[in-house]
């Protein structure tokens, strides 16, 4: 998909719905990298930051040529570094494709505060939903 063809709102590409939906505006998309703003401010516990990173990786994988549809699932999380277990405010989610392997897309993700401080980073592997042994 060309950047110009992208809807501005991540919700149109994801099947998450509130309160599970954590992504708002797609701030930037360039082939193998994406930046999304959170759809809310307020208090963030680290699992929510990680879930937002996973949603961003899933969205990016779906935008790749031959990428999965919105039923993609998370197969693996790796090297998750929790810098800030709790955050108050808005959040920016960054993801970049690191590797593609037969139906799997591994993305490096970074979650930052609205002021640019790093809150969490993780490698997220996205799989097609058809894989019976993947999850979430």
């Amino acid at each position, binding site marked *: 998909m060309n950047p110009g063809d992208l809807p501005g709102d991540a919700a149109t590409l994801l099947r998450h719905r509130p309160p599970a939906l954590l992504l708002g505006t797609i701030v930037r998309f360039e082939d193998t990298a994406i930046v999304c703003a959170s759809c809310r401010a307020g208090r963030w516990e680290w699992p929510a930051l*990680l879930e937002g990173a996973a949603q961003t990786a899933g969205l990016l994988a779906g935008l790749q040529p031959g990428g999965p549809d919105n039923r993609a699932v998370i197969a*693996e999380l790796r090297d998750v570094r929790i810098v800030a277990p709790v955050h108050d405010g808005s959040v920016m989610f960054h993801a970049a494709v690191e590797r593609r392997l037969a139906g799997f897309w591994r993305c490096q993700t970074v979650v930052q505060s609205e002021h640019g401080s790093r809150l969490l980073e993780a490698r997220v592997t996205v799989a097609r939903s058809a894989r019976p042994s993947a999850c979430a």
Partner: protein
Amino acid sequence: MPTRTFATVAIARDTARAWVHPRRAAELCAGHFPGDPFLPAAALVGIMAELGAILVGSPGRAPAVVERALFHRPVRPHEQLEVIGERAEMHTVATELRVGSERRVQALLRFDGCP
């Protein structure tokens, strides 16, 4: 020892076993996904980290690092979820989430600076 997440927690030496409240599992599925609910990957890791924190003697503490979490099959909110943790090293806990005898998720967690 019930918590908001666990109906029961049993600890014996370096291992812990807990059952997740069905109500809590249902809460974590809200919006994920309507008509096809299953627990988000991050929520599952969060549940496993809660048990890990209890096991290392710091309830409520977040892990510093999730070295690796593998998701074998989706976890549905109506299923009975058992979490097992084993303290592997001073600051490291290996955890599994099971439904019956089936392992659904494995995660290796590292807690820095724990007692």
